[in-house]
């Protein structure tokens, strides 16, 4: 082995962490008997330590861990995930059907004007509510996140009746409702019921 060849091998040598790696054994042995290579190796490992120390010194923002934990999505196993997807598909299909019917009726000039009502109840992430019966303050963070991401949002009144909350056709109100997730609010809007499925087109939200 020559010095140049040993240097090429030892370029990747980091110190004790690589001592067990057989690819460095022979070159390390050679370096013990070559003063110039020994000095080069010392400089090389000390340079590795300096760079490593600078990079390891990078500190994340203080609140990053809490932020990650707070925004954790609901962990799902595959079985529950399938149920959730199915529930979401049902809710979305129902929403699309309702919207299509509404548009069709408007085109036909048979607008079924909903009755204006006021509902007091808890704001729900409909997907998790239907799939897992998840509601209440302990699920507020997850519900907020899901609503913010555009999943269907609803309200459950004091008698247990659930309404799908929507905005004006073509306008999402998820952004306005996300902050109220799992909270009790009063919503005023127009009620529509089709095939037993109740929808409330929101006109005003008041925090209770």
């Amino acid at each position, binding site marked *: 082995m020559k010095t140049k060849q040993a240097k*090429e091998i030892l*370029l990747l040598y980091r110190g004790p962490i690589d001592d067990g790696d057989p690819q460095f054994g022979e070159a390390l042995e050679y370096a013990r008997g070559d003063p110039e290579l020994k000095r080069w190796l010392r*400089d090389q490992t000390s*340079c590795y330590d*300096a760079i*490593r120390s600078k990079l390891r010194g*990078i500190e994340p923002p203080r609140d990053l861990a809490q932020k990650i*934990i707070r925004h*954790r*999505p609901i962990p799902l196993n595959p079985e529950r995930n399938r149920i959730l997807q199915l529930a979401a598909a049902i809710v979305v299909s129902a929403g699309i059907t309702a919207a299509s019917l509404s548009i069709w009726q408007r085109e036909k000039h048979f607008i079924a004007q909903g009755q204006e009502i006021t509902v007091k109840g808890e704001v729900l992430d409909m997907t998790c509510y239907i799939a897992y019966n998840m509601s209440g303050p302990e699920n507020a963070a997850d519900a907020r996140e899901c609503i913010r991401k555009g999943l269907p949002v609803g309200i459950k009144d004091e008698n247990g009746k659930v309404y799908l909350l929507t905005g004006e056709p073509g306008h999402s109100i998820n952004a306005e409702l996300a902050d109220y997730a799992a909270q009790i609010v009063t919503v005023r809007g127009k009620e529509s019921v089709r095939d037993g499925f109740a929808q409330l087109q929101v006109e005003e939200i008041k925090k209770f």
Partner: protein
Amino acid sequence: MAADLEFENLVNLYYRDLYRFGFSLTGSEMDAADLTQETFYIWANKGHQLKNPGNVKAWLFTTLHREFLKICRRQKRLADEPIEESAASLPDPPADCANRIDSQTLLHFLGEIDENFRVPLVLYYIEDMSYKEIAEVLMIPLGTVQSRIARAKIQLLRCLTETDPVQTRRK
């Protein structure tokens, strides 16, 4: 809930390492925080698919790397040009290496290295991973990992050799 606690423990165990990895790759605090958060978000959704719990760390680093590559592709910053350095032009590491760099300069030099070479180099420096583990994280052959690290390291050492020591620059 046990799942919540497990997730919190995992975050507390690895978020610093992942953030450092992300920061060293992007040079941006915001991008590093986003990458770290996205990595754990993906873990929460797909982590159950991991068959060997001993591979959690490698899985997290692989995921962050993938997300980083997505950003690169979006920004069209992925260069295909290989580093031209070779072991034949091996520079001597500066003896006063610690005096020649501050974190800012180091990140600047790292940022000038092509992504394909920078990623294994960063893992080489910040994580106590064997070359085999780095190869598993990046899903590339062991020989490729070593050759990329060597080439990137030569480029970095050359930058360090050519720069003035920090003390001199501050005068």
